[in-house]
C-alpha cells in the first residue's frame, strides 16, 4: 500500500516536459513535490495564474497572489496572470495537458473510452459547490484521479456512481494506494499493483470489474 506521498510521486511520473498541469486541492497538490528532474511543467491555477511557484517564505505572503485553494503561493519565471474567463477558456479549450483530482466515486461503462466521476457532493450533506472541477474534467486533455482506493471501508471504484456526477466519461487514469489503472473501452485495466498488494486484494476492494494487463507490473516506488 502506498502513502499519500507515494501516490503523488507515482502520478508525477506521468508528467512530461512542457506539460501544462492543473492540480486539485489536497492529495493532487502533493504531485508538485515530485516533478522528475529535467521535466519542466507549468502549473495552472484556475483563479488566473499559469506558473505557480512554491509557498512564499514567511513574511513574503501576498494577498494578491493565491492559488485555487486560497493558499498564498509565488509565481515562477515565465508565468502569466489572466481573468477567470480566460483561465477557463484554456481549461475548456483543451490547452491544459493534465488535470489531477480526487474522487468520491468512479465508475465505467464498457464501450465508453473514459470513466464517470463523482467528487463534488454527497446528498444530505451540505453542498459546498463544484468550484472549477466540472470545467477541469470536461476540458483538460487527460484526467488522472489520485485517491485512496477505499474510503471508510467503502469502495470508491464502483459499478455505477450513486453520487451526483462531476463529469460523465471524463476519467482516463486512476492512481490509488493499491494500484495504477487506465480506463479503456474494454474496461478498467490494472497496469501496476502497489508493492505487497495482490490481485485478489485489489478485486476485493473494488466494486467494479477489473481487467489485468498482460504485462502487469509491481509499481516502482
Amino acid at each position: 500500500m502506498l502513502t499519500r506521498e507515494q501516490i503523488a510521486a507515482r502520478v508525477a511520473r506521468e508528467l512530461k516536459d512542457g506539460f501544462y498541469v492543473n492540480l486539485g486541492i489536497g492529495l493532487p497538490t502533493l504531485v508538485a513535490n515530485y516533478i522528475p528532474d529535467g521535466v519542466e511543467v507549468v502549473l495552472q491555477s484556475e483563479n488566473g495564474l499559469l506558473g505557480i511557484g512554491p509557498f512564499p517564505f514567511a513574511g513574503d505572503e501576498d494577498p494578491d497572489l493565491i492559488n485555487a485553494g486560497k493558499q498564498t503561493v509565488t509565481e515562477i519565471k515565465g508565468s502569466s496572470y489572466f481573468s477567470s474567463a480566460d483561465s477557463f477558456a484554456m481549461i475548456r479549450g483543451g490547452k491544459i495537458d493534465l488535470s489531477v483530482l480526487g474522487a468520491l466515486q468512479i465508475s465505467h461503462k464498457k464501450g465508453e473510452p473514459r470513466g464517470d466521476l463523482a467528487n463534488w457532493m454527497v446528498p444530505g450533506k451540505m453542498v459546498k459547490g463544484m468550484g472549477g472541477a466540472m470545467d477541469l474534467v470536461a476540458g483538460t486533455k487527460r484526467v488522472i484521479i489520485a485517491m485512496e482506493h477505499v474510503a471508510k471501508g467503502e469502495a470508491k471504484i464502483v459499478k455505477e456512481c450513486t453520487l451526483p456526477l462531476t463529469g460523465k466519461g471524463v476519467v482516463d487514469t486512476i492512481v490509488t494506494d493499491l494500484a495504477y489503472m487506465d480506463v479503456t473501452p474494454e474496461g478498467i485495466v490494472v497496469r501496476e499493483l502497489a508493492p505487497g498488494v495482490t490481485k485478489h486484494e485489489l478485486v476485493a476492494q473494488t466494486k467494479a470489474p477489473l481487467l489485468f494487463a498482460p504485462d502487469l507490473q509491481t509499481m516502482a516506488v
Partner: protein
Amino acid sequence: MQKVYSDAESALKGLADGASIAVGGFGLSGNPENLITAVSKLGTKNLTVVSNNCGTTELGLGVLLKAKQIKKMISSYVGENKEFERQFLAGELEVELCPQGTLAERLRAGGAGIGGFFTPTGYGTQIAEGKETRIIDGKGYVLEKPLVTDFAFVKAWKGDAWGNLVFRKTARNFNPVAAMAGKITIAEVEELVPVGALDPDQVHLPSVYVHRIFQGKNYQKWIEQRTVREKK
C-alpha cells in the same frame, strides 16, 4: 466625462432593495471591500449576488450574508462560510450553484451580447437538468445563459479617471467579467491615477465597462490560507 466619485457611499447612488450585483473576487482576494462595507451600512435588502464565493463567515460578502441582506447567491463554491450553510438549510437563502468556468463565461457573455453558449461543462450531470443539451461533433454540450446584473462591484489595483483598470496578480480573477456584466459598474481602486497615466497597451479592462470609480481606503486584503515555507 464624469465618472469619479468621492467614496463608496456616493458611488452607490441608485442601489435599491432587490437589486442584482455581480461582485469580483476569488475567495477574499481582489474583493471590493469598500463597496461591500458601504452596502452593509446602507442595509440594502433582498439582494441577488453573483460571485464565485460568498466570503467567509465573518469577512467579505459574508458580512452581507450574516446581516441577511442577500436573498439569492449565484456561486461556484461557498464552502468557507458556515452561516451560508445555516441559512441555506433553514430555507432562508436561495442558491444557484454554477460551475466556475461557466459562471465566468456567463458573466462575459452578458457583457459581450452573447445570447447563450454551448459548454461541455456539466454535461451528463445534474447541472444540465432542465437545460437544453446537444451533441456537437460527438461531444455533449449544455446551453448556458448570459448573466446581466443591475450593478457590478469590482476592485482593481490602479484605475484612471475614465475607468481604465489594471489588476495585480491573481486579484484580477472575476473582476473583469463582473465589470462586463453590470449595467452600472462601480470600480474601487487602490490608486486612482490621472487620465493618461496608464500605458494603453497595459490596460486590463477598458474604460467603457466602468461607469463609476473611486479611490478605496483602509484595504484589509485578508489572507484565507496563510501557507509559507521555511527559509533553509
